[in-house]
């Protein structure tokens, strides 16, 4: 499909600041900890969405999958 007809993604440049990186690291740690604790996928996905929504004001997070778990 020719790219000219499809809207392109904006270019996002630069890196998150240290605080943001810590937040991401913290996020990953928390989620992996859940995984290690044998939490169900549903609980983990819920935690991911809520963490994102808490981290970014005025947004909604969602996960869509082809296969129902």
């Amino acid at each position, binding site marked *: 499909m020719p790219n000219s007809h499809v809207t392109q993604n904006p270019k996002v440049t630069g*890196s*998150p600041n240290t605080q943001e990186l810590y937040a991401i690291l913290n*996020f990953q740690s928390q989620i992996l900890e859940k*995984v290690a604790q044998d939490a169900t996928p549903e609980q983990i996905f819920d935690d991911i969405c809520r963490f994102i929504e808490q981290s970014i004001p005025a947004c909604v997070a969602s*996960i869509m999958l082809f296969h129902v778990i």
Partner: protein
Amino acid sequence: MLFDSAHQQLHVTCAPSLPPNAIDAFNGLEPAIGAGSCGTSAFMGIPVLAVDIANDSRWDHLRDVAEQFDIQACWSYPIILDEHQVNGTIAISSFTPRTPHPFHIKLLEAATNVISIVLKRVDSQKALDHTAHLLNNITQTMPGALYQYRLTANKQQEFTYLSSGIKQMTGVSAEDACNNFGLIWKQVHPEDKAQLWTSIAHASQHSLAWSHEFRIFHLNGELKWLRGSSLLEEEVVDGKQIWNGVFLDITPEKASIEKLRLAGIAFSNTNDGIMIADKNNVIVDINQAYADISGYSREELLGQSPTLLKSNKHSPAFYQSIWDTLEIHKHWQGEIWNKRKSGEIVPHLVNINAVLDPSSQELTHYVSVLADISGIKASEAKLSHLVHHDALTNLPNRLLFSARLDHAITHRNTNEKIAMLHMDLDRFKHINDSLGHTYGDELLIQVTARLTQTLNPTDIVARVGGDEFAILVEELDDNDDASRVADNIVAAMEQPFTLNGHDYFTTASIGIAIAPDHGEDIDVLTKNADIALNQAKDLGRNNYALFQPELSESVEEWIKLEPQLRKAISEKQFRLFYQPQMDRSGNNIIGAEALIRWQHPERGLISPIHFLGIAEEIGLMKKIGNWVLEEAFQQLAIWRQAGLRSFKLAINLASDQITKQNLPDKISSLLNAYKIPPDMIELEILETFLLEHQHESSKTFTELRALGINLALDDFGTGYSSLSYLKKLPINKIEIDQSLVRDIPEDANDEAITKAVILLGHTLDLKVCAEGVETPEQRAFLEIEGCDQLQGYLFSKPIDPADFSNLLRQHNRLVALEA
């Protein structure tokens, strides 16, 4: 392109802040370019960052949904587990147009990573579950129990895994057994524990594959055989060994082996010969007994056909019938005469089974079980001989004779005749009684020897009773042939027999019946030979007689008269006839013998020889005899009144009259009733009666004599009387039997006997009367010899009372009173 299925749909798996109707709107989203950020990202496998949805072509298909829920920006990242597979998307949506910061991008990337990890974990868990399920299914359906066993350095044992099959084998559940190894160990048979442990220790020490069979008790008490096999896992940590293996229940296998072992013992040790042949009837195995019975070694028989043992005693049809039976019934049993290696022909009892393949039902083998029944056959033959032969003479007995006679009659050629001779020894009873059974038996053996010498080897002689013999002579041309055989036998028997150093005489009487003339079955022929034997005895013994059909017929006819005979007395059908007895000159009547006749309403006058036998058999003789006495006394009274004097009326006595009543009382009352002087009555007793009842009847005769009655011995010369008792008996007269008188003067023997009897009588001071005098020559002879009285047709036949009255008148015996 990463996404390859247009038909797959995305589902909202998690969206904690989206309202339900928004979730519904996005559910089932099919990936495509234009299907929003998530649909496009999933389709293309790349992040889609829509910063202003209103002007973004990637939302072309979903713009109304975006407007409905006021979504103005949406950043979506694909979730990719491996390089080729998009599993879904994660998205951040905003209600204002919005461009992501690097933080947002990193956050999304971090989220997709952890989601991937979670999804991989889910997949792994699924795969693990699937494997466990599969393993479980396999172990459930496998026979036996799979296990994992751990042995520590200090020999601690445990099952780290056991499949559920262990419960069926031991009654202990897999779970319990894994928790407590002792539960299984304590069920092992005490005698097998030490060996089991030794085998485990050995395998463990040398890291060898382990396999061992042992017994274990099921919790229900049943003893099972298990076979355990296991292999050591390669890694040994801290001296711990992990063994993976299986336990199998081999109880049925052990039972089969035991059965086979026993069958093998039976096969080797049975006394019956067992031979196994393949479907082509080639011998594949035999046991020792078969070798012994057949005389061939195993090596000589293997590969051979059982026809090696064939004798020529059976027809090909016989063998064919065996095959036919095997074909249909798969089994045959019977006796076969086989030939041993030595050439000896022996009887075998044989059981043959056709063996079929259990699944295909096709013939695979024949199994023959064979028993040598020579011994049984010999015993059978011996028994048969005992059953069919007389132990004393070893001659065939009546049973075998009847069978031979039957066979001879059945297989007789049309023109051929068969004779059955029934022989009876005339004086056997006398010899047996006087010398004892030992000499009686000896006599029978000598008689047998003479018979055998006299007869042809093809003739069959049998002992059919105490002193009775039967002889079967086949292939006769005419009846005279049979007579000649009988004549030879009679002649052979006339010679004396030496018993205990002395000579004894016995003679034979023989009755002959010929097939087909006198009957064509054994019963008729036997009966007729018997009748002929009686005829021969009537002829005076030491003789033979050919059966005369007309006599037999009359006998049978007369037997029908029995009920009529019973009525004859009450119906007053009996008559007394009188035959005069003359003095020595033959000119003067000195007495008469009263003789009974039966005046049958339909058949006319019947002679006593035709009915007295029947009367005796049916117990009528006492009644008839007493009627005769009464009638005779009555008639004598009439004649006395008519002037008869010096006259003796002879009346025959029947045995039952003497033995079954008080005869002297009877006679005494008759004498009184009819006023008859006792010396006018002469009672005749048969010589044969005296032979049998000498002792018990002597008192009767003495009493009769005391009454003044005369006693005469009738039919003298036929009964082989002992002279000693003649002397003791209170008799006055003997009557010479007519059979002796009949052949005078032709038969010198009879003449001599008659002379001797007369002389004897006179020596004992007895009167002698000759019966049956028919010719002047006989009369002359008897006169010369001094016989006191004569009786017979020469003077008068028996006549009725009226005629006798006339006769008396002619002789001037009744004149006096009539004048």
